């Protein structure tokens, strides 16, 4: 969180790096995650030692979000629900395994394949935290993280879990970066994870509350992305004075257009996390929410709205409040 806060406070885009793609003379511009120094303690755990970055990022974010609460679940007394959200998932090991398969499937590595499975991050995290509570791995465009928040809230209200971690995680690979490049050459793909830890509040509790998650407004033949973005905004109650908007604008004009139009009359403060950290897909939606919650926890705003107009699925928004 300190590095995240510093980057947002500086307000300058994190420097881009070149990522070479086989067969291309020109590089793709990306924002890879900085390797942590020193090496995190949890990577010594046998299951995480060989795990793909997408799993390692998920565990790192989850542990930071849980903070002091982790031992409550590790001892087995309380039930921790896990919802891990991703759009690309384990693209790095998948590409490597497919490459080996195409060269000679008889010698494709059995060490790589299990890590390509979309629920590997959730499984590693559950094992690390010693939780046997059910988990869900959700896939979709970046908006899936907000759906995950709504699902977690339902699990808590239904008594299915005592606490819930919702995690958005993605990893960098030239395959994903070149796929994004096909749709908008101004997208700067990034990687990492973000996590929120939710628990039921008692009536006397103070802190940051999840107030609402709007309907998911699909992009269909009958409903454009622009219309879906407007409907997501219209679902929310009018903003409070000084309410913060954490939007998903990233500085890629074509991609930003529908969301920018839907929120162009917002007069309050605004934070565009992706302009600074890049397009982290499901992780970026998580960063938006983490930034919103962190701002409220620091008493800088009374409420915050997060808007996610996804790439190719749906538009959705969430509202957080401080009490």
């Amino acid at each position, binding site marked *: 969180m300190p590095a995240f806060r510093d980057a947002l406070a500086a307000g300058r885009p994190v420097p881009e790096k070149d990522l070479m793609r086989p067969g291309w003379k020109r590089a793709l511009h990306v924002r890879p995650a900085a390797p942590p120094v020193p090496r995190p303690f949890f990577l010594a755990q046998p299951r995480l030692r060989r795990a793909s970055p997408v799993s390692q990022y998920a565990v790192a974010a989850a542990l930071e979000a849980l903070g002091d609460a982790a031992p409550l679940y590790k001892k087995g007394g309380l039930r921790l629900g896990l919802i891990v959200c991703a759009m690309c998932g384990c693209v790095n090991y998948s*590409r490597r395994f497919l490459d080996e398969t195409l060269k000679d499937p008889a010698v494709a590595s059995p060490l790589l394949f299990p890590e390509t499975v979309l629920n590997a991050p959730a*499984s590693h995290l559950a094992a690390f935290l010693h939780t046997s509570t059910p988990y869900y791995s*959700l896939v979709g465009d970046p908006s899936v993280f907000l759906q995950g928040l709504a699902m977690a809230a339902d699990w808590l209200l239904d008594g299915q879990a005592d606490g819930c971690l919702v995690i958005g995680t993605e990893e960098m690979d030239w395959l994903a970066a070149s796929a994004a490049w096909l749709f908008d050459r101004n997208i700067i793909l990034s990687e990492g994870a973000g996590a929120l830890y939710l628990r039921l509040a008692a009536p006397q509790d103070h802190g940051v509350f*999840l107030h609402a998650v*709007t309907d998911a407004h699909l992009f269909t033949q009958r409903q454009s992305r622009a219309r879906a973005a407007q409907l997501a905004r219209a679902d929310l109650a009018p903003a409070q004075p000084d309410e913060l908007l954490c939007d998903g604008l990233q500085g890629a004009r074509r991609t930003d257009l529908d969301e920018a139009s839907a929120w162009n009359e917002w007069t309050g403060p605004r934070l565009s996390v992706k302009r600074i950290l890049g397009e982290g897909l499901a992780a970026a939606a998580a960063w938006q929410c983490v930034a919103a919650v962190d701002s409220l926890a620091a008493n800088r705003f009374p409420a915050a709205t997060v808007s996610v107009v996804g790439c190719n699925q749906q538009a959705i928004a969430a509202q957080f409040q401080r009490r």
Partner: protein
Amino acid sequence: MLFAASHQADSASRVVITGAGIITAYGLGWKVNAAGFRAGRVAFRPVSLFDVSRQRAKVAGEVELPGTLPQTALSPRHLRRMERGAKMLLLAAEEAWRQSGWAPSENLPVVLGTTSAGMSLGEDFYRQAIQSPDSQRRQATRILHYQAQRQALNLADAFGFAGPITIIANACASGANAIGHAWELLRRGRAQRVLTGGYDALSQLVFSGFDSLQILSTTQCRPFDADRDGLTLGEGAAVLALESLEHARRRGAEILGEILGYGAGTDGHHLTQPHPDGEAAVASMAAACRQARVGPEQIDYLNAHGTGTPLNDHSEAVAINRWAGQHAASLPVSSVKSGIGHLLGGAGAAEAVACLMALREGWLPPTANLRTPEPACAFELVRRPREALLQCALSNSFGFGGANATLILRRWS
């Protein structure tokens, strides 16, 4: 709103099935699949979709797709861009949609399970990126149609509805988790109808992955046989139209069956191997029974995950014994994977439909190729087709990553 702080949980609704669609290696539709499950027919054939000459295993439960796709609001251009998994999903959904008699709606949630969505398109994308790096021809389309959300959106476009799309990728438990989550949405009163199911198509990456782990059978898939040597992959899709009992009754719908309970659990033992004691499987079955308010003695048939791998079947046998206790001896158990293969993200949904068929038509689906029962099985292994009047069936789905899920279905009478 998907969530509002003011939300109050409604009283629990009963959840019924008013439409079911299925496509497997047996073919498309209820009739041909029911006949296959009932007879325990084996539908494996040599893999023709990609080269398996360098793999240990050579067969799979390949689906023969029909020449034409159903008439929907999807354009011919759109249909041409869909890959196998998307086509199978559309075919199964169309059968369920037609059977349910549903009309388009602006608030119809979709909950699907899959493990690899349109992986064959991802493979094509990679091949072209490596072999012709400067050519971008069709690459954007491949990326779009590769993704699971596109395949779910196809259903919304095809049938003219909207609503939240939830895609659960919990490995081989995905289909059961999806149906379970849909059941929870209805029970909580968050929706009146949900279209749900699971699907996966065969792909070279996944086939090679399972082969690399040496868990594909090189002889015959024989779940719960002492001499079993692995699973056989299959492909397909199954979709259920679920709705609250009140909603179904209000519109006079034909009710095919009821989903009574859903349970899930996590096995942290290993990424690809179950705990030998089946701890999470026991927890999953027990949780489903608690929700359904039934005990093991009320389960008339158990559709096992039963992949045919040495580790899964032993662990599941131990778990069933522990969960059923003294009732194990009289509990009929079988695995339909011996006939259609392991459908991965589609398995839980296809097997829920198999249970629904058995409940409605009054038979027990046998396990094919079973000669010498695994010694750990304290329950009755169904080895030959037979008639049976069933009230309740339980279906297990266990996946990589320790995802365990159980559904309990009841006959509607």
